[in-house]
């Protein structure tokens, strides 16, 4: 039973200098360890699974807005959209049909030249979870992770072009570095004449920078830049950007060229994760390869592009047997 102590006017908390030093050492240790050791990368991917609920939670409001916009949009708008989509489907399936015959023709021609056929690129689809919340980087999070055998360095596409590549993977989500990020560069070639360059991100979503273009290079505004496949990370021939400015100065040895990415990360919600073949690994025999090639990936009539279709196989075998006769 003592006298109650008077509450002091200023309560003196601990001066936490030692804790601060400990935290600073830990933080710097982590930052450098991440640069040096791959073990930190795996630890990170497991830890990211822990914060995945927060990522889902913060994605909820925009999901809700999207859902309610759909719920209250009137019937006429839906009918219009449906009509538009049908039209688009018709155009696309028409294109796919032509594509199938062109692919077959291409294979014939390549066989005549004894050139190897490029393999199909399998893919899985992914949905956007969140664009990055940081104004100084261009990244996004998608809803596929280690469980879907996503790997670091995997190319990511949207409906129109290359978006970027996967830079970290957790169990259910992964993080994509976009081509426009200042840390990203991709080897490209001009679709028109095959000249090869590097396209570097600038940090602005709508601009890529093409450095080291000789003043004599044949490059024009409007040229389509596609992946060149050099470097082995991105498969060849996917559209990346369109050249929108070429600055030529006669006194300079190099031109200043900038390009606008074709993919639209602000508008797309669905993406493709490509699984490009490492190398031309197994040498398939002519007919089997043909049979694989006849099915074009993404063909709505053949949702399972990896399966060899029976008609194509018999067609290819018959072709071979007539050649042997």
């Amino acid at each position, binding site marked *: 039973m003592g006298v109650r102590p008077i509450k002091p006017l200023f309560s003196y908390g601990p*001066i936490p200098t030692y804790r601060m030093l400990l*935290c600073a050492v830990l933080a710097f240790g982590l930052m450098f360890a991440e640069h040096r050791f791959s073990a930190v990368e795996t630890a990170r991917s497991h830890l*990211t699974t822990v914060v995945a609920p927060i990522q889902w939670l913060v994605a909820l409001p925009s999901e809700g807005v999207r859902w309610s916009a759909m719920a209250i949009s009137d019937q006429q708008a839906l009918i219009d959209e449906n009509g538009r989509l049908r039209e688009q489907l018709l155009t696309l399936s028409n294109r796919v049909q032509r594509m199938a015959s062109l692919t077959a023709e291409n294979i014939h021609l390549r066989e005549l030249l004894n050139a190897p056929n490029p393999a199909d690129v399998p893919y899985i689809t992914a949905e956007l979870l969140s*664009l990055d919340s940081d104004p100084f*980087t261009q*990244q996004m999070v998608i809803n596929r992770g280690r469980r879907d055998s996503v790997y670091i360095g995997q190319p990511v596409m949207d409906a129109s072009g290359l978006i970027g590549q996967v830079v970290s993977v957790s169990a259910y989500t992964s993080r994509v570095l976009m081509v426009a990020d*200042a840390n990203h560069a991709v080897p490209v070639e001009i679709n028109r004449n095959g000249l090869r360059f590097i396209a570097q991100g600038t940090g602005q979503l709508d601009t890529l920078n093409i450095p080291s273009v000789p003043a004599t290079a044949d490059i024009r505004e409007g040229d389509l830049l596609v992946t060149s496949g050099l470097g082995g990370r991105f498969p060849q021939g996917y559209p990346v950007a369109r050249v929108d400015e070429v600055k030529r100065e006669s006194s300079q040895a190099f031109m200043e060229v900038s390009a606008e990415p074709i993919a639209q990360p602000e508008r797309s919600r669905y993406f493709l994760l490509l699984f490009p073949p490492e190398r031309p690994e197994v040498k398939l025999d002519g007919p089997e390869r043909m049979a694989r090639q006849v099915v074009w990936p993404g063909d709505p009539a053949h949702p399972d592009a990896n399966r060899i279709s029976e008609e194509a196989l018999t067609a290819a075998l018959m072709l071979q047997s007539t050649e042997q006769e």
Partner: protein
Amino acid sequence: MGPFGYLFVWFTLLLALCLQVMPLPDAWLVWRPDWLGVLLAYWCVATPQRVGVLHGFVLGLMLDLIEGAPLGQNALVLSLLAYLFLLLYQRFRVYSIWQQAVLVFILLGIAQLVEQWLRTIFGPISVSLEFLLPALIGGLLWPWLFTMMQVVRRRLGIG
């Protein structure tokens, strides 16, 4: 402060973390106030014996994981922020609310500056003075947040 109070502290801090990483249109991103910094600052000033550097470290680590920043970058920044507020919390008790707001702006600004330095170490970025906007808006929000949190805290009988 009992276990309930401690839960409440973590609840508000996690709420601030959610606001900090909430997806926004690209043009609005630089206008987002530094929610996590402001709320951490509030708890450091209000209960300096309970909330401090280690809280900043843990929250920063979570922010790093969510944002995909190098591990430890935000952890360092937020623990530094907590440290600065713990050094100066006694001044807050004698300052008027707008003087507090100015001090909050300055300290948040220092933290943002350190963050930009760390970013330039780890890779090329485009630097502009825009990085001070979250600190400025955080400072402007301080009087409202401080008053509201004091009322809520008194209602719940925490601290």
